[in-house]
């Protein structure tokens, strides 16, 4: 049988009630904060810059060049971070909560962290299906789309295809136009500005591409090795031929047996180049490169957006790094 409340212990409730009364005292502050979070108080107003949040530095750099002072761009993953492995820090959700436009690479590159941030952002403007939600992979032809059954025994494969298309300027110009089109939809009054700005950027990229292709022409047909399958689009553009990868399967760390096989394969193919990003460890790559007579090139991994570096300047650094191959 339940016992009844004993009046002697009424005092136990007091601290809770005091807390409620204290909160009530600050009701004006609470109201102010609530008003600050209403849609009408959000920054996406006609006279204010559009808030663009890009998951990666390369997309952020493009958006900044297209939008100039009409957009305020922030980037979730630093260029030094592997975009497969980003901590879903709540501060990133806060950025997304204020965004008018989300740009992401797609093809499951950000699947390990973006969905939880998007849910936590509580921002209907950038949810899937909303005009502020832009999967940039829709603008490119995708390589390495698996055919047949996809299984994790194949490693951490991307079932919709290779997501590392931002290393190919031919595909990047399509992304530039796609971003400009979406910015124009969100701010129709500035659509012509975005369009002309994008075309100017496309012109700069195309001119730079001709220069990069001239400087790297001698690499066409070169056999090479990469750490991860992140340079497939670079190879497609420059005519490199990858004869193996340091990872035996995508996302699987190398083991001694695979390293021995890769060294043999690279020697047999006369590979001259081993490329990888700075977020992968270099000790195994260095060993493989030395044993197989290859040059190890650690590629820069994205524009330094904090210093205002453009995507073309970043690619210029990448091309310069590849030029060092004898």
């Amino acid at each position, binding site marked *: 049988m*339940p*016992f*009844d*409340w*004993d009046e*002697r*212990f009424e005092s*136990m*409730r007091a601290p*809770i009630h005091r807390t409620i009364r204290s909160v009530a005292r600050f009701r004006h502050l609470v109201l102010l*904060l*609530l008003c*600050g*979070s*209403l*849609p009408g*108080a959000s920054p996406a107003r006609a006279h204010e810059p559009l808030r663009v949040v890009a998951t990666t530095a390369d997309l952020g750099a493009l958006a900044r060049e297209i939008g100039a002072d009409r957009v305020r761009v922030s980037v979730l993953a*630093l260029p*030094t*971070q592997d975009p497969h*492995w980003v*901590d*879903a*820090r*709540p*501060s990133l*959700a*806060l950025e997304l*909560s204020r965004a008018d436009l989300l740009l992401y690479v797609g093809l499951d590159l950000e*699947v*390990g*962290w*973006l*969905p*939880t941030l998007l*849910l*936590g*952002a*509580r*921002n*209907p403007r950038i*949810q*899937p*299906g*909303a005009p502020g939600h832009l999967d940039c992979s829709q603008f490119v032809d995708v390589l390495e789309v698996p055919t047949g059954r996809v299984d*994790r025994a194949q*490693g*951490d494969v991307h079932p919709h295809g290779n997501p590392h298309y931002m290393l190919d300027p031919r595909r990047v110009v399509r992304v530039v136009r796609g971003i400009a089109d979406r910015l124009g939809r969100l701010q129709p009054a500035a659509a012509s500005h975005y369009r002309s700005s994008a075309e100017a950027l496309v012109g700069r990229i195309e001119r730079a591409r001709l220069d990069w292709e001239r400087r790297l022409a001698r690499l066409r047909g070169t056999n090479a090795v990469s750490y991860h399958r992140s340079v497939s689009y670079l190879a497609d553009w420059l005519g490199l031929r990858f004869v193996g990868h340091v990872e035996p399967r995508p*996302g*699987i*760390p190398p083991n001694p047996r695979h390293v021995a096989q890769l060294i043999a394969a690279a020697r047999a193919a006369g590979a001259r180049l081993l490329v990888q990003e*700075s*977020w*992968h*460890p*270099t000790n195994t790559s260095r060993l493989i490169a030395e044993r197989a007579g290859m040059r190890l090139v650690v590629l820069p991994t994205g524009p330094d957006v904090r210093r205002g570096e453009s995507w073309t300047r970043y690619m210029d650094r990448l091309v310069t790094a590849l030029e060092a191959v004898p």
Partner: protein
Amino acid sequence: MAGSGLMNPDLSVVLDVAVAYFGPRGQPIGTGAHDPSRNGFNFQQLEVAIGSSVDPYFRLDAFLVFSEHGVEVEEAFGTTLALPARLQLRAGRFLHRFGRVNATHPHGWSFVDQNLLVGRLFGPEGGGGLGVELSWLSPLPWWLELSATSMTASGAASARSFFGGRDLGVRDPRDLLHVVTVKQFFALDDDWSLLTGVSAALGPNATGRANRTDIVGLDGYLRYRPTRGAAQNAWTLQVEIAHRRRQIPRDVLADWNGYAQLVWQWGRPWAAAARWEYGSSVRGLDGQPVEDPLDPDWTADRHRGAVALTHWPTEFSRIRLQATSDFPAWLDAPRLALFCALELVTGAHGAHAF
């Protein structure tokens, strides 16, 4: 139907099994429903997670758990996607957000077994119930989230400090369990993160219609993960403390509970972890230890220490070795437990919160 596969929800299956040894003194005294509980092979659980957007306004997530005791709906809730003013609503059966570890599932833990704090205060399945949660992300320059939950106060395995297994029904809102949390995140720099929280769980208990249980807690999570270079190391320090007060006839019982754990991950595939836990004896209004009707054996302070070594062959498989020494002061000697646990994840499992 062409294209129907594209409309299927994300589906994943997580298997947890373990081999355990509990030392010469015998029986384990862990608190978790899915902790290894006997010498030899243990089937901890098989979790099936299903989740997808329902429409532009709702998302549905469900977690079904299969164990040797049967099947249970661990969580099944809808989440709003389009409320204004940074509000979000969850409705259904779910684990409430008291503290840091309560709302997580075993495969998100750094150890094989459940924290004493959660098991003692809320129950072997973790604190939860059927109800509704409203959360709000403030417009302040840093991340600050408030949440308020009202849910059923019954459930021997999920609300033991409240109605527990003796559901006295709901006559007014005071017969529900109310959980309030305030969480704040500070990005100290690119590499350092700090998440802090204050929580309160307030509800009725089963010793009398008007008798109340109040649990208040603090939690902190400090993480260092370099964002430059290839080291892929990370350090995390996680601390929770909670104070519980329960009215019972002619007395008010109070106790303290807490833990601290440090995890060092080096490279992507390895981590070492150490955890210390504490649960005080229960004291009455006069400050003297008294018998706890919920845990009659828990008559003195209890300390438990554990170390664990984890290896992830890939992000979808995990092997964990753990040694635990339990020091309940009411027993004559510590209890030792050794675990070797295997976890396998297949399918599309949703990303975890920070």
